């Protein structure tokens, strides 16, 4: 059995949208950004979290990082409860779990040189005895991120690099701490198609060579097929389907997954297919629909879906679907 690195148990995060006014009264309204999420992640495993904007995937990332406090549930990292960490514990935890952000143009400070950016995490955590050693570690991280020879880049500034190079710098800044888990939040959606592959291949290599676990957050099922071991599809703060990548891509169980798969453009005009285009957009997470939260947009919803909130059923050993229309294997 592979070693579990992260375990998330019925995690919840709510934000207050409206507070009752002292004078006018009124009801407190809550945004249910994450509404009960469970999953586990093994060492060296890549899990793709897929969903549209507003499904809570970015809130989930920030909560996992300890940057947002969960409203309920537990996060276990290496068996230790993250939610009870004090500041020192959190700092130590953030050495083990690192994040890569969506926009490499925004996530680098324009006034810092690449060397400053990559050695900053070492300084923050008091690693590396002196400047030379930190520089050496930075060079290694940059080269592992595919910026060779790294010496050329050290004195440059972010605006002198292309989008792909910047994203590599962001990755180097995360690697330099030798984390065990990388949280990649839409790391390629801002990049040109020709460069996306580079970054994804780089992450795949790192996972091979360093046994890093990766949570890859994206709205595009198309990019994860190459890379993820498992896919979790999120809708309105919950996982509606989770399973091995090839099973999800070949035998999607949930109508939402099916729709997401059907709209991925296929680069072959001879294979134009019937697309399932859902009406409307993800509803507001303040008023979550009754019953199955997907029923108002679901093309196959029946009366029961309005009433009953479906629970996970196993369609195969590791493939879970939360839909009333799916019967267990």
């Amino acid at each position: 059995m592979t070693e579990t690195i992260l375990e998330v148990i019925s995690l919840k995060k709510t934000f207050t949208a409206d507070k009752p006014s002292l004078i006018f009264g009124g009801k407190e309204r809550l945004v249910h950004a994450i509404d009960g999420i469970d999953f586990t992640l093994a060492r060296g495993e890549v899990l793709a979290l897929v969903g549209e904007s507003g499904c809570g995937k970015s809130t989930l990332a920030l909560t996992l990082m300890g940057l947002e406090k969960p409203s309920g549930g537990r996060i276990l990292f290496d068996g230790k409860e993250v939610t009870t960490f004090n500041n020192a514990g959190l700092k130590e935890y953030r050495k083990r779990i690192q994040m890569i952000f969506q926009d490499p143009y925004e996530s680098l400070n324009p006034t810092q040189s690449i060397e400053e950016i990559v050695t900053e995490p070492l300084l923050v955590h008091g690693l590396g005895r002196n400047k030379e050693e930190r520089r050496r570690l930075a060079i290694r991280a940059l080269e592992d991120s595919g910026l060779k020879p790294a010496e050329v880049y050290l004195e440059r500034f972010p605006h002198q690099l292309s989008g792909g190079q910047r994203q590599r710098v962001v990755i180097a800044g995360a690697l330099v701490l030798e984390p065990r888990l990388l949280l990649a939040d839409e790391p390629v959606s801002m990049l040109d198609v020709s460069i996306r592959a580079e970054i994804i291949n780089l992450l795949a290599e790192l996972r091979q060579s360093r046994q890093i676990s990766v949570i890859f957050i994206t709205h595009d099922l198309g990019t994860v097929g190459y890379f993820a071991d498992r896919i979790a599809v999120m809708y309105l703060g919950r996982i509606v389907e989770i399973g091995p990548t090839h099973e999800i891509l070949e035998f999607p169980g949930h109508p939402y997954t099916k729709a997401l798969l059907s709209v991925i453009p296929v680069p072959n005009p001879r294979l134009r297919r019937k697309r399932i285009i859902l009406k409307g957009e993800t509803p507001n997470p303040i008023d979550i629909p009754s019953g199955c939260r997907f029923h108002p947009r679901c093309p196959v919803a029946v009366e029961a879906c309005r009433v009953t909130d479906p629970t996970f059923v196993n369609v195969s050993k590791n493939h879970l679907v939360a839909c009333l229309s799916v019967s267990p294997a």
Partner: protein
Amino acid sequence: MAISVTLETLPAKRTPFQNFWRTFRKNKMGVIGLVFLVLIILVAIFAPWIAPYDPYSSVGISAKDVYQPPSPEHPLGTDDAGKDELSLFVYGSRVSLTVGFFASFIAIAIGGSVGISAGYFGGRTETILMRFNDIMLVIPDLALMVVIIALTKPSLWNIILVIGLLGWTFTSRIVRSQTLAVKSKKYVLRARAIGAGSWHIVNNHILPLVLPLLVVNAVLVISISILNESALSFLGLGDPTLISWGQMLNYAFARGAMSSGAWWALVVPGFGIVWVVLALTLLGQGLEQVFNPRLETHHLTARKKTSFPEPAVPSGRPQLSPPPLLTVRNLSIEYKISENSAARAVDNVSLTLRKGEMLGLVGESGCGKTTLMLGLLRLLPAAGSIVGGSIDFDGHDLISLSDAEMMDVRWKGISIIFQGAMNALNPVRTVGDQVAEAIKQHDSNISGDAMASQVAELLDLVGIAPERKDDFPHQYSGGMRQRAMIAMALACDPQIVIADEPTTALDVMIQAQILELLSSLRERLGLSIILVTHDLGVVAEMCDSVLVMYGGVLAEYASVDQVYNSPQHPYTRELLKAFPNLANPEKKLSSIPGYPPRLDNLPAGCRFAPRCTLAIERCELELPEIKEISEKHYVGCHLLDVS
């Protein structure tokens, strides 16, 4: 993709100061201000050597010296005590500048700390600090200063302290808003994710970006402090044992300089104050120009009249029937970079578009796609110009049309949905209003009722419920705003719609909805559409033909089927391999090593040669000619001659 003439700073090594000086000296007024300031500082430092008399001693002064007009002995005359005005002026600069610098140092230190703390910590800290700030701001500074100084001993340091302690309110507000802006940046979040504490983040990420603002602001606070000191001294609240310009004015005013006609006693100190304030204001403006990149003049300068070389039309251009709606032949567009160099952003591109056809324009960022589209509409920025070729739209040569005639073609003939346009809706006007405005632009005589029904019809056409016309843009989702933009593009019944990356930054499902909409509009209205995108999948699903651009030139142009199933240009093949294909998910994605060429530094031969794995010697020497290799399949590649 903005117009991609990226002019990066040169790699040559310069210290930050050298960089600063290079930009700063371009601002003539700033340099003048600096020179003025340095002069007066030198005067203050070398006062004992410059002043002809010692104004602190009254040795050798008699009654006849009082209010003497300028004379060779006293070039600026004398004051009410018979002292030499020039010497007073020179010594007075010492006090005025000391007060200015020290008081503003205090003010900036307090204002900076308050602003950064309020902006960074937010919440209760911010509420308390900013409310206190507001209270300080409403109290008239000078009145409060007068009260405080009157209650304490009027010494130089008291004056400095009072001016400094009351002069920070303005700075803290500006610093707070800058801090808020920096704090929301992703790299601050990244630093938190690394595990950095507040102290580290403020020092390493906030301060460097707030500092320029502090410097510019300091210069202004110095001049305000000097004015305040003068005002206090003028009101008789200065240190009576010291000479300052304000003190000089005070004495002159109080002791009858006006009635004695001794204008020099007022003009001399007044001149000093004006001199310093002017110097600091000019300097502040110059510094702001350096530190605030938005104010920096653009690298690109406007180009004057364009001369047209005769377009060389090669034989074998597409012969289509019925005649195409739009025919572009050998279009070339340049951006002027400096006086005598230009970057060729589009070189020799030809294409045709029939009625109802959907053409995909594909390429990486910075390959000239957007420039080509702006060129079609003659909407190029000032530095860009069409330098060759022809654009024929429905029988009109668009290049030779007058500006007024071209206005008519835009929107009524060809309309464009700009990239990211959904974020360009005016936030304070309703969506219906903005759609109506687009209609009015080209049909100003339309009646109110007709307008209302037309707006409703357009919104309905793009799938927005007409009753939502009175909503504001922020009440719409991203997908809805994009639909509204499409409605505006359709407002004048155009024949061609150019959609520049219409689905970038939208979720997959919304993307699919928008593409579906464009597809149905094409069928229902017989629209021709040019879809600019870097997403090959979208093109395969939607388009009839594809034009692949690279480095400003046409790489391959053919029907969708030909491009996808028998791509000929190595670049097209690489692009296809880099695209994830769910139909075949086991295959590893490949990427194209290297980067597209910069438009101001294009390779001599084939633009793709530096990244092409198949390149031969000839590829690096000459740009390949565009050949029609089979019917309506155009490719520009030397390898076609080899095989």
